[in-house]
């Protein structure tokens, strides 16, 4: 019994040290974001400055259109979210439930395209976007993500588990395949959609390389690109940069707080992707 308590204590200590290492940079970020610029450059460092400088958060949008970036990120993320959830569930339904020739071969080939890294096709995609006149416009960040193999795969796996009897009932009612999908399958897919949704949300909100290549003007940037850009401008104004970095994380933090289990599920499934 005594030995068990001891090992438990050791476990807690190890976990606490580990957790502290993981969290320290975040605490450092928040602490810095609330200090004055002079207090940042003092040695030894302190956790809090003499006064809490909330105005750093206001200063974020002084020289840069931070609000624009936030809105741009929100637009891109939301549009992709809605479109991809819809196309993925449709395509997932087709591959799970409808029968056509070479269905499973086509599905596997489509699935294999998940393995093509974004960097390998980025030059031709850039050229296509240019031909479409979409460079420096938000649709260039949206279009490629409107329908994906990964989303299709995830929804298909879910629809495979739904019993036939439900589908048969709809067929007897005279539903066409879209009707069956819309009335029976879609309403059942909330958990799967939430999992895929979190995956899409994280990917889009944190996306960097595509905005970097497709967007030029400052006001059309997304948060990640804007922040990277800020770094060049503010150079050593760490309080403002840390405030900006923290704001950019808040939406994901909120979702994480309320849907931790879905996050974990989404990540475990992501293992299948990257």
């Amino acid at each position, binding site marked *: 019994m005594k030995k068990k308590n001891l*090992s438990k204590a050791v*476990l807690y200590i190890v*976990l606490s040290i580990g*957790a502290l290492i*993981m*969290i*320290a*940079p*975040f605490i*450092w*970020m928040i602490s810095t974001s609330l200090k004055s610029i002079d207090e940042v450059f003092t*040695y030894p*460092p302190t956790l809090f400055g003499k006064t809490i400088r909330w105005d750093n958060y206001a200063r974020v949008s002084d020289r840069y259109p931070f609000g624009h970036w936030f809105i741009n990120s929100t637009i891109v993320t939301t549009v992709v979210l809605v479109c991809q959830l819809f*196309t993925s569930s449709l*395509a997932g339904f*087709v591959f799970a439930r*409808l*029968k*056509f020739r070479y*269905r*499973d071969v086509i599905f596997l080939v489509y*699935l294999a*395209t998940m*393995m*093509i*890294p974004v*960097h*390998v*096709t*980025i*030059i031709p995609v850039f*050229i*296509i976007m240019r031909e479409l006149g979409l460079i420096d416009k938000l649709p260039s960040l949206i279009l*490629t993500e409107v*329908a*994906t*193999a990964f989303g299709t*795969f995830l929804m298909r796996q879910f629809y495979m588990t739904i019993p036939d009897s439900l589908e048969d009932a709809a067929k007897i009612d005279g539903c066409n*395949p*879209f009707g069956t999908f819309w009335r029976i399958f879609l309403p059942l897919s909330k958990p799967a959609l939430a999992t895929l949704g979190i995956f899409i949300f994280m990917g889009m*909100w944190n996306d*960097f390389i595509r905005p*970097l*290549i497709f967007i030029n003007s400052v006001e059309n940037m997304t948060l*990640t690109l804007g*922040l*990277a850009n800020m770094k060049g401008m503010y150079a050593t104004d760490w309080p403002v940069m*840390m405030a900006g*970095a*923290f704001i950019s*994380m808040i939406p*994901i*933090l909120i979702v*994480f707080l309320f849907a931790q289990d879905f996050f*974990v599920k989404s*990540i*475990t499934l992501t*293992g*299948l992707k*990257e």
Partner: protein
Amino acid sequence: MKKKKLLDRDSTWSFILLMPNIVIFLVFSLIPLIASFFISLTDWDLLTPMQWVGFTNYKELFSDDIFLKSLWNTIYFTLGTVPIGIIISLLLAVAVNQRIKGIKIFRAAFFLPVIASWVAVGLMWMWMYDKQFGLLNYFLDLIGIKGPPWLSSIKWAMPSIIITSIWKGIGFNMMLFLSGLQGIPESYYEAADIDGAGWFGKFMHITIPCLSHTTLFVTIISIINSFQAFDLVYLMTFGGPARATSVLVFYLYQCAFRYFRMGYASAIAYVIFFMILIFSIVQFQLQKKRITV
């Protein structure tokens, strides 16, 4: 007869419902993949007409010191992040797999860096690594070590990127291991208890062998991901100092969008593609087992 009609109806519907996926797949995956290869056989700066050069770009790659340096850096980065990252996250997964109070909070803490963007993480760590006022050198100072100038040092820049990448990736791998751990039957451990096995014995003889599939999977994903490292390098060091952190994707980005050598950059893209392809095929085979067709 009736069955055939049903099949035809389903085919038509399938085609209609798959339309968005078909279009996006053709325009943004298949065509670019093929186009990328053709562009790699040309000289093209986007402005003047393309010039067909055959395999010249590929030949040039292997006498280009910057490319070879970037290739080496990518391998260095991979060797630096993957083994350490996997060992730490495996141990962490075992630790957070215990049923003790507050374990969910610990899991959340380890997971936090995963949900942050690479850009936010990069900014945070640039400040952590600050030579004079950074938290890291402060702590090193406390234990009597004079910290290096991290990101601005040729020797330490890559280790800095590696440390930050490991820190960000641990939670992700931990969750994959955790879901693997939860698949190991409790009875194995109970049997070992009866045999009087200790913690370490159980870990070596039950946990590790049972997780072999997960470990292989995590290793391959980690390798594929580290071949594609870019964001941190772009943000924290821009490939420097003196190309010390220039990785393949970064060099690809520079060639394409800074030097406007589309053909040459596409050749780099194809090298990356083939490097990843080998690992992807293994991953795909593993994954196929998990898909019920």
